[in-house]
């Protein structure tokens, strides 16, 4: 019974954090884009002067966060005539669901020991987690594809076809990047991969995956951004020629679900990059009993506090990667479609294969002692 309760709390915690981070990112992106383009950004939604009353500058932080979803959920839920009503309603949730369930295998902290009980801070500790991620990402295509098709609109269908082609193309590069990491660490278990990234090389360099698999990291981040269909990969949505692509005929809550999917995917890609390449919840030089600083200094820390530091470190790293993705979005222009396909099939896939080959060779020659 208590195990069931702990499992439920873990699941709720990770979903709560993922969904809230996704919602905060919407505001983050509006203000971030404003910063980059030298504008003020979203500052109108301040109906009751909430920010001022709290002594905050009039940035609309709390209010934009509340106003955006409130506006979306109170709008009319429009279904076009001759649309496939069942699949039209199913589409956004078919897109959102696989992204959210992927968070189940992301370890957001080390094993915590409370009252003689060891709690693994991973909602679903399955030992084939890397395959699970590839499976859920693969299924995520259907929401976009069927949502666009069911709208009975040519622009939406074109957007859906573009999105499907783009997602299955970049899934291969993403899979190759993940497989290279799996080969390096010899396990599919994400918590074990995080454990393997503890400790240091040469007395100071953290044993993070990015120093072993730098190419893999770039592949995963690029392919992940293409999967989330954002600039410079936003051809399925391109406002200028396809209006909004696959979610053109959606309004209200369903459109909000598609938006949430995009932002949840950003969080997911960040979480995967952090788990595979930046030590997950590992903090440099922090072992289970305290900080072992490079100079030889040692600061003792309570093991429970170390675990809590780990959770905080994981989320700080995830937020940093979300910010990097937003920076990229507002820095680069959109690709042309042939450039997108060339980058995917002639750039990332051969690079990923070569990387995998070299990794496998090195692992076999060193007998997996990386």
């Amino acid at each position, binding site marked *: 019974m208590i195990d069931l309760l702990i499992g439920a709390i873990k699941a709720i915690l990770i979903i709560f954090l993922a969904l809230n981070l996704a919602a905060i990112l919407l505001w983050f992106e509006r203000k971030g884009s404003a910063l980059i383009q030298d504008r003020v950004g979203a500052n109108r939604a301040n109906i009751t002067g909430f920010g001022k009353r709290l002594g905050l500058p009039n940035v609309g932080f709390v209010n934009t966060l509340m106003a955006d979803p409130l506006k979306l959920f109170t709008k009319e839920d429009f279904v076009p005539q001759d649309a*496939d009503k069942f*699949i039209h309603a199913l589409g956004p949730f078919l897109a959102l669901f696989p992204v959210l369930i992927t968070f189940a295998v992301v370890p957001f902290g080390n094993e915590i020991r409370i009252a003689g009980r060891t709690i693994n801070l991973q909602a679903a500790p*399955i*030992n*084939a987690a890397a*395959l*699970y991620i*590839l*499976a859920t*990402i*693969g*299924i995520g*295509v*259907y929401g976009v*594809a*069927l949502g666009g*098709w069911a709208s009975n609109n040519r622009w939406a*269908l*074109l957007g859906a*076809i*573009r999105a*499907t*082609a783009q997602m*299955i193309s970049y*899934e291969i590069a993403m899979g190759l990047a993940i497989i290279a990491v799996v080969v390096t660490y010899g396990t*599919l278990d994400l918590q074990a991969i995080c454990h393997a990234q503890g400790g240091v090389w040469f007395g100071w360099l953290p044993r993070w995956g990015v120093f072993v698999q730098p190419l893999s990291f770039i592949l995963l981040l690029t392919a992940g951004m293409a999967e989330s269909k954002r600039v410079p990969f936003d051809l399925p949505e391109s406002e200028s*020629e396809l209006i909004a692509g696959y979610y053109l005929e959606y309004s209200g809550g369903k459109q909000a679900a598609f938006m949430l999917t995009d932002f949840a995917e950003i969080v997911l890609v960040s979480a995967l990059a952090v788990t595979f390449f930046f030590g997950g919840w590992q903090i440099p030089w922090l072992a289970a009993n305290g900080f072992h600083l490079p100079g030889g200094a040692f600061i003792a820390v309570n093991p429970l506090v170390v675990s809590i530091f780990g959770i905080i470190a994981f989320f700080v790293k995830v937020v940093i990667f979300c910010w990097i993705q937003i920076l990229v979005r507002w820095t680069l222009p959109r690709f042309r*479609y042939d450039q997108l396909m060339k980058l995917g099939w002639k750039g990332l896939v051969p690079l990923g294969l070569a990387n995998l080959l070299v990794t496998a060779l090195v692992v076999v020659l060193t007998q997996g002692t990386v």
Partner: protein
Amino acid sequence: MPMGLFWFLAVVTVIASLGVILQRNPVHCLLSLVVTLLAIAVIFIGEDAVVVGFLQAIVYAGAIMVLFLFVIWLLNIGADTGPSGHLALKFFGGVAAAALIAELLIFLLPPHLKVKFAGHSATYGSIESLARTLFSQYIVAFEITSILLLIAIVGAVALARRGPGSQLAKSASGSAPAERVL
């Protein structure tokens, strides 16, 4: 796997597979097929064949069904393209279905079915044991399969390639509006 979960998945699988053959709209049929494949993948995982289950979800539900979706879209198959009502076709279809059911009944009922589902080793279905079997006992079959797939890929590239002077290359250089949009 708990019995209740098995029955739930079994019922979902049967209903979804009936949906594949009974529905008129090809996209609805495809969606039913995806549900069928995913339910079978979960049954695999429940029976400890974890890797096979996930590979089923990745390869069939995640990749091959998307290909089917593309075929349906690009050939523009509408809801009205049902089977033709030809009597001979229905007759032979019925005979084939009856033969298949009879065969399944004969070979899957107790006297023939000797497979035991319980009592496998602890590493059963793990990626280690699967890889060990695949790359030692079945290595020849595995390599032959990969060469077959390679031939298929080379063949597909050769068919789709736009050589200089081919009809496709000419129309591409004129860049038809439809291609530019895509």
